[in-house]
């Protein structure tokens, strides 16, 4: 038996209009037009934390450079442990160090933490409620390398895990705020990471914005639509809201950086302000992420607004340039604005 077409995606991409992408799939930092950027906010925040807390150590599985952990490794080499390309060991060893009283921050890519090391996170870390902080680059669709690198279902995987707190930061402000908040939280945390030059978005819309673990925050108000968003989709939603305002459409954006535990009270309070279309937006498959969590929350409380979800389809995604892929799968500002408009 032969496979129907080994190159089916290539053939599909060479549709009659010809090749589309002119940019490379190799993008180190996520671009957001019109915002300042902060260099390696995770690494900088971790060094600051480690300076004031002797329990903090960093571990990585041959991806220190690609998770901004190298900032700690360079500044405080005695606090960094290179575990090699061995994610099961990374998680078990982090658990062992936590048992000995340390606060380990372990970094890899989100695909490897969620898929390859899951049993080790579940049993060595979560079941014993150990304070291991798992910080993972390339969440959702933030790389064009294809499904081997795209962690489109990591939130769904970790939402099912008892004791696990889950953070999907939007920008540099969230990352700078979440690092000390993770250390202060007594149990395990899974956090998505943005690495390299990270846009500083939330503070430009709300100057006094500060990340708070477990809290959803209104970033902007609007009378027609309530977007409940997490991660980088909050920056997309904010840009789309500015654009829709010009068309006379008022879009509120409620940013939910903590996926678990979910700030149900704030989500319900906002959704109860009647008459608005409620749209969830996440850089994750529509299965098992923020959208379904919000839908469940509303349903259980008998709150029934018009409801739509923006997220990735239940598919293995294509490889290519990130802007192309974000357009293709509905995560770009253009597509977010267009979808919301279409639902009104």
């Amino acid at each position, binding site marked *: 038996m032969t496979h129907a077409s080994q190159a089916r995606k290539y053939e599909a991409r060479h549709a009659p209009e010809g090749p589309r992408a002119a940019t490379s799939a190799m993008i180190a930092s996520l671009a957001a037009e019109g915002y300042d950027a902060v260099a390696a906010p995770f690494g900088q925040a971790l060094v600051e934390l480690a300076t004031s807390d002797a329990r903090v150590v960093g571990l990585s599985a041959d991806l220190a450079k690609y998770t901004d952990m190298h900032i700690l490794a360079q500044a405080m080499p005695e606090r960094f*442990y290179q575990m090699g390309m061995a994610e*099961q*060991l990374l998680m078990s060893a982090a*658990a*062992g*160090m936590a*048992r000995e009283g340390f606060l380990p921050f372990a970094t890899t890519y989100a695909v490897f933490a969620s898929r390859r090391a899951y*049993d080790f996170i579940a049993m060595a870390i979560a079941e014993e409620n150990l304070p291991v902080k798992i910080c993972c680059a390339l969440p959702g669709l933030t790389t064009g390398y294809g499904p081997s690198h795209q962690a489109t279902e990591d939130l769904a995987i970790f939402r099912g895990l008892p004791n696990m707190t889950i953070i999907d930061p939007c920008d540099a402000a969230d990352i700078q705020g979440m690092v000390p908040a993770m250390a202060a939280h007594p149990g395990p945390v899974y956090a998505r990471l943005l690495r390299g030059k990270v846009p500083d978005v939330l503070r430009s819309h709300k100057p006094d914005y500060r990340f708070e673990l477990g809290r959803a925050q209104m970033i902007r108000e609007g009378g027609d639509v309530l977007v409940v968003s997490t991660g980088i989709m909050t920056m997309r939603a904010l840009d789309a809201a500015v654009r829709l305002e010009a068309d006379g459409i008022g879009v509120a954006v409620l940013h939910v950086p903590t996926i678990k535990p979910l700030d149900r009270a704030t989500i319900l309070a906002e959704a109860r302000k009647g008459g608005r279309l409620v749209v969830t937006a996440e850089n994750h498959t529509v299965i098992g992420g923020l959208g379904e969590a919000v839908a469940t929350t509303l349903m259980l409380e008998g709150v029934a607004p018009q409801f739509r979800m923006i997220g990735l389809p239940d598919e293995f995604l294509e490889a290519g340039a990130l802007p192309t892929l974000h357009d293709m799968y509905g995560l770009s500002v253009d597509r977010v604005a267009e979808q919301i408009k279409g639902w009104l």
Partner: protein
Amino acid sequence: MNATDRPLHGSNISLARRAWAIRRHALRMGQVQGQGYIGQALGIADVLAVAYFHTMEYRPEDPEWEGRDRFLLSIGHYAIALYAVLIEAGILPEEEIETYGMDDSRMPMSGMASYTPGMEITGGSLGHGLGIAVGMAMGLRHKTNPAFVINLMSDGELGEGSTWEAAMSAGAQSLSNLICIVDFNDQQADGPSTQVLSAEPVADKWRAFGWHTQRVDGNDIEAVRDAFDAARNHDGPQPRVIVFDTTMCKGVPFLEAREVNHFVRVEAEEWERALAILDEGQPQ
């Protein structure tokens, strides 16, 4: 070091007698449930006797004492054996034998840190212990705490890839405060470990990963003691492994003879018979 830290150092109770008592506690627990991983417990009893009554430092009244040697039970299903040694060491009371595997017991069927004093980790998802041991050894070294981490794993766990991730890392980091014990009884769920995956040459595998390696008869108490001494006292930078060849159900010949003994079937009347055979051979 004082007498409190090595509770039974200098005791006039022999290691053979300790091993006998461990076997007896385990058989009595097996009898409570009518089943259990009794073959493994009888097989590893001599190794546990030496570990807890010759090698390790700990304080029975304070199982979380910072200076203790850490004993990790990677093979959670050997919990019955560890409970037996924890009872013999005075960390668990003997009266609790009757609660083994029952609701509200501190001694569940598979070992979990959250239930039992002296149980360092939740084992049982096989291939986890050695990686956690690597992290604990890193942590102890970081703190300049001279304690050892001792990880007990099975020959079947050699099949888990995570074992070799941890073995490679321990060698690369020269974790000389780590002792791994491999119980080589050549039995796993689906058959002999030497046939399910090619476990041999097991000692060469560890040597290749940079470990100080010994392989000895795990039911010869003097050989076990010498091996632990050599592992602990070796002055090289390597992590240490001892592969112990053990006999499933050791000490109860009619059970030793059973062909399929990963999970031994013991009929109701056989428990008393097994205890009687054990008692006949009670050492001084």
